[in-house]
C-alpha cells in the first residue's frame, strides 16, 4: 500500500471531488498547512485553477459565503485557516451554519465543508495554538471530524464531502507531513464509529487527532509495566461513538480521556461526564482527564511542554486510575 502524508490524502479526496462534481470549489489560503507540504498543493492548483479561490482575510464572510453557496446546492471546501482564526467567523458558523437546517424546519440543507488546523505548534504562542472543539461541540448542528492519521484524513474527508450536513474537518497543524499506508482508491470512513486501535484489559484510553498517537505511545509504556491499555480513536466528535467507549470501560473499569484542547469545559469533560453517568457501575476508579492546562499558550517551549498532554502524563494518569491511588483528575 502506498505511503502518503495528510496532504496527499487530502489531495486524493479533493481531486476526486473535483472530478465527480463540476461545481466543487476549494476556497482558502494554505489549505495544506503552512509547512513544506503546502508545496504539494501546486500541481492541484494548476490543474483546477478555475475552481480554487484564495480569499481575503475575511473569515466571517467566506465561511458564510461557503454556507450560502451550500444552501444553493454547491459544495465548497472552505479552509478557514488555523483554529484561532475561526473566531472572527464564529457568528457565521454558530448563528448561520449550525442552526440553518433547524430554523428552516428541515427544508434547507447546508452541506458545507469547513476545514481548519488545530493544536499546539511548538512556539505558536497565544494566538496560534487553539483546539476549541469544546466550544464547537456545544453547538448543535455541525458534524465534527478529527482524523488521527493520513488514512483517517482520507476516509473521513471523503465522508464529510458527501455529507448533507455542515461538517467541520479538523486536522492537526503539525500533522500534514505525517505519513501512513493509505490506499490509492477512494473509500469512506463512516461518522460516529470509533476505531479500536489497541486492545487491553486494564484501562481505556480515549483520544482523537494527534493525541491518538500519543495515547498509543503511552499504551506501549504501560504494557512494559504490565498494564494493558485499550486505545480508542474517536475519529468523529459529533456524532460521538458513546457505545464504543462504554463497551470498553465495561471491560476495563478504568478510563483516561486524552484531549489536546483545554481541560475546563473541554471535550474530555463531556466524555467524563457521559461515562460517569452511563458507565457508573463499570467504573472502578475516577475517570482521569489529561488535557491542556487552563492557561493561555505561552510562546515558551518550556511552558508549552508543561501544559501539553504527553505520554508520560497519560501513563501517570492511567497508573493512578488502575492503582486506584490518588485520583488523577487534573489537566496538563
Amino acid at each position, binding site marked *: 500500500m502506498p505511503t502518503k502524508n495528510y496532504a496527499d490524502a487530502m489531495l486524493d479526496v479533493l481531486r476526486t471531488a473535483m472530478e465527480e462534481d463540476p461545481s466543487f470549489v476549494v476556497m482558502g489560503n494554505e489549505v495544506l498547512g503552512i509547512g513544506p507540504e503546502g508545496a504539494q498543493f501546486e500541481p492541484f492548483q494548476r490543474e483546477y485553477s478555475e475552481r480554487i479561490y484564495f480569499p481575503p482575510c475575511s473569515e466571517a464572510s467566506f465561511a458564510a459565503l461557503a454556507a450560502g453557496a451550500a444552501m444553493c446546492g454547491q459544495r465548497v471546501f472552505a479552509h478557514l485557516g488555523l483554529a484561532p482564526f475561526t473566531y472572527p467567523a464564529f457568528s457565521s458558523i454558530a*448563528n448561520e451554519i449550525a442552526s440553518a437546517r433547524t*430554523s428552516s424546519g428541515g427544508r434547507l440543507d447546508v452541506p458545507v465543508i469547513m476545514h481548519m488546523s488545530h493544536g499546539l505548534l511548538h512556539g505558536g504562542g*497565544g494566538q496560534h495554538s487553539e483546539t*476549541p472543539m469544546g*466550544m464547537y461541540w*456545544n453547538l448543535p448542528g455541525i458534524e465534527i471530524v478529527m482524523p488521527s492519521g493520513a488514512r483517517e484524513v482520507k476516509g473521513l474527508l471523503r465522508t464529510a464531502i458527501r455529507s448533507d450536513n455542515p461538517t467541520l474537518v479538523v486536522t492537526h497543524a503539525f500533522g500534514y507531513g505525517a505519513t501512513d499506508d493509505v490506499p490509492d482508491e477512494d473509500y469512506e470512513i463512516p461518522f460516529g464509529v470509533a476505531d479500536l486501535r489497541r486492545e487491553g484489559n486494564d484501562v481505556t484510553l480515549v483520544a482523537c487527532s494527534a493525541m491518538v498517537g500519543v495515547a498509543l505511545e503511552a499504551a506501549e509504556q504501560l504494557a512494559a509495566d504490565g498494564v494493558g491499555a485499550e486505545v480508542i480513536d474517536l475519529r468523529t466528535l459529533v456524532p460521538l461513538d458513546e457505545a464504543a467507549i462504554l463497551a470498553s470501560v465495561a471491560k476495563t473499569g478504568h478510563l483516561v480521556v486524552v484531549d489536546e484542547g483545554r481541560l475546563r469545559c473541554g471535550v474530555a*469533560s463531556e466524555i467524563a*461526564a457521559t461515562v460517569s453517568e452511563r458507565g457508573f457501575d463499570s467504573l472502578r476508579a475516577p475517570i482521569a482527564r489529561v488535557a491542556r492546562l487552563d492557561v493561555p499558550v505561552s510562546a515558551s517551549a518550556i511552558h508549552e511542554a508543561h501544559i501539553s498532554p504527553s505520554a508520560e502524563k497519560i501513563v501517570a494518569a492511567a497508573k493512578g486510575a488502575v492503582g486506584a491511588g490518588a485520583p488523577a*483528575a487534573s489537566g496538563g
Partner: protein
Amino acid sequence: MRETTYLKEINATLFEAMRGDPRVLVIGEDVAEGGPYTATAGLAEEFGTDRIRNTPISEAAICGVAIGAAQSGLRPVLEIMFIDFITLALDQLVNAAAKAHSMSGGQLRVPMVLRTQGGAGQRGAAQHSQSLESWLAHVPGLKVVMPSRAVDVAGLLSSAIADPNPVVVIESKTLYFRRERVPDEPEPVPIGRARTVREGGDVTIVALSRLVGEALAAADRLAAEGIEAEVIDPRTLVPLDLEAVVESVRRTNRLVVAHEAVAHGGFGAEIAARVQAAAFDHLDAPIERVGAPFAPVPFSPPLEDAYLPGSEDVYVAARTTLGRPAAGS
C-alpha cells in the same frame, strides 16, 4: 427589606459604579437610550454621552475598544445586547482580552466587564436564545459569572467592575422583571464563591442562573415527598467554588447539575467531571445532568417549552439519582 428587580439592580449598580469611579464608562448599542431592556436607562442623562457611548452595530470593534480602553486605565462596561452576538466579538474576547495579561508577561491588565444576557423563553428562536456560558468558561483568562437573583447581579457586577481582569457577566432575560425582596444593605458578593440556597441531606442540586428557581421549585416538591434536596448556586463559573459542591456531595452522595444550555459540552459536564474525580467514593449513584437537548433553540412555543429544562426535569433527575424514578419517567 425593599422590593426590586434584577434589572433595576443592574441599573442601580451601574449608577453607583459610575458615581464612585470616573474611570467607569458604558459602551454598547443603544445604551444611551437604555437598551432594549432599560438596563442602562437614565445613565446618559446623569453622566453624559462621553461616558455612556452608543455604538454602531459593530460587536467586534466595540469589544476591541473596551479592551484598549481597559488596557489604558479605564474601566469599561461593554454591553453585548444578546449573548448570541458575542460570536461576533469572540475573536477580540478570546484572542485579545483573555490573553493580554499572560502574553505580555503580566504587563497588561484588561479590567473590562462584558455584560450580556442569554437564555430562551421569549420565543427568540435560534439566534436570540442561546446559553453559551460553556464557551466562555473554556477560555482561560476570562472570569465568568452568572447571577440568578437581584442581590447577586448587583454584588457580582460590582465585584466585576472592581476586578483587574476581564469578567463576563451573563444575565438572564427571563429573570429581569421578576419582583424580589432584598436587604437594604446587601452583603458584597465576591467572585468565586458559591451560595447554598437551600440545605438538605438527601441530594445535592447544583443549578445555574434561571435553573436555580426551577431547582428550588423541584426541591419543594421533593420535600413534600420526604426528600430533602440541597440547592447550590455556584454564581461564578470561573473561578468555580468546587469545594462547596464537593463538600455537599460528600454528605448527600448524590448530585444533579442543572442548566439551560445544551447539555452536551455544557458547563454541567465540567462540574460532573470534576465531582466524579473529587468525590468518586462518595457517589452512590450516577450524576444526573439536566440541560437542553442537542438541537438549536426552536421558535414554536410548545417546542421551545419542551426544549427548555425546568423544575420537572430537575425533579425527575433528583428522583432518578435517588433510585426512585418518578412515576412515568
